[in-house]
């Protein structure tokens, strides 16, 4: 059974703006899927419908056998613990330390009171430090997040995601604010998590070349509709131009390629 299933999902903001229109696709467990498309095409909305940071207007989303669109509050919390999210602007609590931010990944599984008090078990703390070590941030573990560089912040974001033990990681433009070197580090980490930890990754990307290099499958979104869904090898130059609604030589990939 597929891990994630979109069935004719649409999203209309304020009764006017059509962000998603009749989106249907499935993601199997263990896949690394990139979603590409121009700004404002609905990529972020698509990801946010999965963990209900945005509510879909119509259609059904099935995640891990549960209907996300019509679940109870308690079930939603459970679904959210299984779908971690990584953000373009990292979305860390800047004034807390790295390890505290990483431990936030456990909040969904904790009781209200221990979450409020920031009380974590020894086992959770050990795991947090192990993940921080894997991310190469052990020297920064006690530093406040506002002292970190962008690339380091995003690694904290990934560590927080792993801390959740998710089945699926949703990455919303994870490298859009990073320099090329940090971008590679982040993408390598995501690839590594996908291959070794067998966590499914769904990544929104602006960089077509990055998407083609790292993912096995690409979904192209234009104006809220899926215009391409298939293996990376099948993504032709013409297809890319259709996704970005552009002409020959209008894209940076035309120059680079």
């Amino acid at each position: 059974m597929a891990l994630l299933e979109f069935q004719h999902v649409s999203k209309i903001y304020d009764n006017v703006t059509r962000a998603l229109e009749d989106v249907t696709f499935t993601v199997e467990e263990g896949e690394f899927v990139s979603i590409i498309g121009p700004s404002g095409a609905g990529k972020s909305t698509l990801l946010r419908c999965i963990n209900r940071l945005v509510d879909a207007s119509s259609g059904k989303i099935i995640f891990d056998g549960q209907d996300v669109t019509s679940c109870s509050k308690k079930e939603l919390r459970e679904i959210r613990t299984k779908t971690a999210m990584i953000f373009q602007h990292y979305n860390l609590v800047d004034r807390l330390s790295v390890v505290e931010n990483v431990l936030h990944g456990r909040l969904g599984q904790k009781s209200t009171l221990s979450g409020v008090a920031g009380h974590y078990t020894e086992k959770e703390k050990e795991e947090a430090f192990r993940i921080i070590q894997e991310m190469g941030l052990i020297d920064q573990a006690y530093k406040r997040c506002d002292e970190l560089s962008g690339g380091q912040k995003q690694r904290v974001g990934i560590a927080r995601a792993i801390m959740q033990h998710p089945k699926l990681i949703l990455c919303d433009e994870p490298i859009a604010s990073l320099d090329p070197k940090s971008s590679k580090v982040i993408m390598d980490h995501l690839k590594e998590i996908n291959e070794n930890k067998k966590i499914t990754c769904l990544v929104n990307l602006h960089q077509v070349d990055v998407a083609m290099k790292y993912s096995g499958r690409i979904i192209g979104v234009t104006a809220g509709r899926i215009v391409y869904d298939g293996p990376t090898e099948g993504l032709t130059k013409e297809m890319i131009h259709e996704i970005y609604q552009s002409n020959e030589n209008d894209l940076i990939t035309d120059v680079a390629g």
Partner: protein
Amino acid sequence: MEQTMDIFKRRKMTYTAVFLVFIAVFAGASYVADFRVVDGILSFPAAISWIASNLIPDQAALERLPNILDKLLETALVSVAVTVVAAIFAFFFSLLGSNITKIHFAVKRIVRIIAAFFRNVPDVVWAMLLMFSFGQNILTGFFALFFTTFGLLTRAFIETVDEVSSDCVEALEATGANLIQMVFQGIIPSSLPGIITWVLYMIETNIRSSTLIGVLTATGIGYLFDLYYKRLDFASASLVVLSIVVLVLVIETISNKLREVIL
């Protein structure tokens, strides 16, 4: 080229027009209110010489200093207490009115209206109203300050919380955290500097306001000022004012230092 010159010309004309309108409004308002600028300025020297001869604290006034300081301390402590208590109430109330906690929009609207009501009734008016229920009592002053501080801080905290913590709250929500966990793990840590800055500012403001309220409720430093003033003991009254100024300056210095350390 001609077009760019045009833009500069138009800007200059706009500024000139705005300036002339200001002058016209001032002149018109002065005429209607029968306010004579020149007379006002000319009376300055006389006012200053009166201040010099009456308001300089003399030996007799200085003997009252211990008494003044005693009342000043009482006023300062009440102001601090009021501000801190009001801040705690205002913080939790502001969460209901914030955009990011996503509680029902009607609740948000009601919270903002209540906050606006408490804030826009001046503290002196609150004191006059509360005097009917509490009488001339320190409690009257306490509640008068509490209400305005509560209203103002609720509004300020809503802005602070909305501005600072929307990103990290989104992330915590995505981990499955519930609202209360988000408040303590996300909103409080990230908006703390803003909250502290507002609380320190309100302490300063409340020390100033409590003087005026004290005149009404016959408590604290305001009572002393009123007393000396009505006895025509201007030297002592001015010593009271000077001591308030010094206290506010001291508090300001302390709060600046505190801000440096915390932020």
